[in-house]
């Protein structure tokens, strides 16, 4: 590639400038490098432990282009393998999730146990194999790195990476705010929803952290909320947004803000308060006792977390876990679930699910207005008469090094933070994405 990094990311803190070139969303060479260096060159999120809870349970996913099988053996050990038969390369496990003591490859019947060991090569003795073949390991190839942080499973196709704890850094505390909502841990509500959009994966990355778009992209949803506020009944779906001023333009004072962390992890957040509109409300007292009020209050804040590059957990209207899978520069697949603390009451779970469907589903009333906007961006990115985008400048004079009084409550130490009223809508948190992106991609470019 003949491009220089500075042609793509214009990062000049002393001049108060941060600009991104449209080409990073459209260029096939950039996309190919992202797959190799970000999605197959370091830690990516694979799934949560409860997707393979019992002996011999498994689930399948991807790390970049690499098909992955996460499998628990009979003794309870969880491992990640490349989901391909060593014989002819056929995908071994065909389904998203299941239970198998043995995986038999449907093509030539090579067989593997739930620890990945080869148990049978069909007609091996009659096969007239040479010694060279016998010397090979015929088991499943483990994913070079695999680690579990509190039920969040990560893997890396590249073997030489910093340990997961170091990679996540302070962002582990953001995952703790999700994991600690129940002593029994987390689960995915049955029913996975998958959708695609015809635009670059980084549009989803940014949108999750984008407070600026809410009143512009979602006025139809806001109007529904306003109608429901006037006319509450058991028939309508209650929403936490109805009980919050967060999205209202006239709201005053600090309503939230953003934190950014090393390696591209970010959080944007807003105060919702301890309200019955949040399904967690039934545990408000218990959670304060167990974790302290500071941490409990944070669990009730609106929080959109990105663990770079492919995991997002959005706790706002409800609670969504999203996995971003880039397919092409202009095509992205999103796998989404409702994530929930185990053991919540039937009423709380129902409320969580109803809120989720209305807001998060591609068949709902909010997400389509985001994804269609991504597609409009992708079309607009061809407008390279002016290649530089201006969407990374809000909050420039409000961003400070370190945390603030809100992060102090849970001893959270971000690299940078912004405290915001409802109209500030920080865009400097994207800088963390693109600084991590630039650091990882640097080797692709001329100096």
């Amino acid at each position, binding site marked *: 590639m003949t491009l220089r990094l500075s042609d793509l990311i214009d990062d000049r803190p002393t001049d108060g400038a941060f600009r991104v070139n449209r080409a990073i969303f459209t260029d096939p060479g950039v996309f190919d490098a992202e797959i190799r260096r970000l999605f197959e060159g370091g830690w990516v999120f694979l799934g949560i432990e409860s997707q393979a809870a019992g002996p011999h349970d498994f689930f399948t996913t991807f790390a970049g282009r690499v098909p992955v099988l996460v499998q628990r053996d009979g003794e309870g050990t969880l491992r990640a393998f490349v989901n391909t038969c060593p014989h002819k390369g056929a995908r071994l496990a065909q389904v998203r999730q299941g239970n198998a003591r043995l995986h038999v490859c449907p093509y030539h019947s090579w067989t593997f146990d739930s620890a990945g060991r080869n148990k049978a090569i069909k007609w091996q003795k009659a096969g007239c194999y040479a010694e060279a073949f016998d010397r090979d390991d015929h088991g499943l190839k483990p994913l070079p790195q695999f680690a579990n942080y509190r039920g969040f499973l990560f893997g890396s196709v590249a073997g030489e990476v910093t340990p997961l704890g170091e990679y996540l850094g302070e962002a582990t505390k953001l995952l703790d705010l999700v994991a600690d909502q129940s002593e029994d841990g987390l689960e995915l509500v*049955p029913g996975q929803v998958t959708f695609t959009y015809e635009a670059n994966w980084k549009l989803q990355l940014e949108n999750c952290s984008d407070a600026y778009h809410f009143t512009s992209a979602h006025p139809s*949803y806001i*109007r529904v909320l306003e109608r429901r506020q006037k006319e509450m009944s058991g028939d309508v779906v209650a929403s936490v947004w109805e009980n919050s001023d967060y999205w209202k333009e006239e709201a005053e004072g600090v309503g939230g803000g953003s934190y950014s962390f090393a390696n591209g992890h970010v959080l944007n957040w807003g105060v919702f308060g301890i309200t019955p509109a949040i399904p967690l409300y039934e545990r408000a007292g218990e959670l304060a006792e167990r974790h302290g009020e500071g941490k409990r209050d944070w669990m009730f804040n609106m929080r959109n977390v990105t663990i770079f590059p492919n995991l997002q957990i959005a706790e706002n209207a409800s609670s969504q876990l999203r996995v971003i899978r880039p397919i092409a520069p202009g095509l992205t697949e999103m796998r989404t679930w409702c994530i929930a603390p185990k053991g919540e009451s039937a009423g709380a*779970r129902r409320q969580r699910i109803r809120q989720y469907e209305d807001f998060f589903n591609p068949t709902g009333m909010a997400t*389509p*207005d985001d994804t269609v906007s991504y597609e409009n961006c992708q079309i607009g990115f061809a407008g390279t008469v002016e290649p530089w985008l201006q969407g990374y400048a809000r909050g420039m004079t409000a961003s400070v090094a370190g945390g603030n009084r809100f992060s102090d409550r849970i001893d959270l130490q971000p690299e940078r933070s912004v405290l915001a009223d409802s109209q500030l809508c920080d865009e400097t948190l994207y800088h963390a994405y693109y600084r991590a992106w630039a650091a990882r991609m640097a080797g692709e470019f001329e100096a």
Partner: protein
Amino acid sequence: MELTQSQAEQLLYREALLIDTGRFADWLELFTPDVEFWMPAWRDETTTTQDPDRELSLIYYKGRRNLEDRVMRLTSGLSTASTPLPRAVHQVTNVMVTAQDGEGADVSAAFTCHRFDVRMNRADCFFGRYEYRLVRAGQDWKIARKKIILLNDTIPTVVDINAI
């Protein structure tokens, strides 16, 4: 009075025509006020979710009031995803009255919906099955329950109530 095959077909065809021609107010009139409108998600490769209170649905509403919200959003001009509205045409086939009782009847059908997204110059096809509960309302029949089993559930950007 029993629901005839012809009455079942006419109601389902009329519903499709009202959606396809954007007559949403008339479409809403086909439903009872307490209608259950349900499109389950898929639990795995072979089974849909079964319990909307404990499992995720693609769409679940109890009450026509919620469908009115959806129609408002769709026609408000305030939703980027719905402006301009895509063009859609439903084919409803395999209509069968599967059960009758004193209050109403169960009807099963198959559907395909071709949708042309004028914004993206893109055509998609959605297909699946309907399960209806129809109840008597004077001379007419109304929809008390509509379950939509969407078979191709990897959603290309958006699927709204007018394309299923």
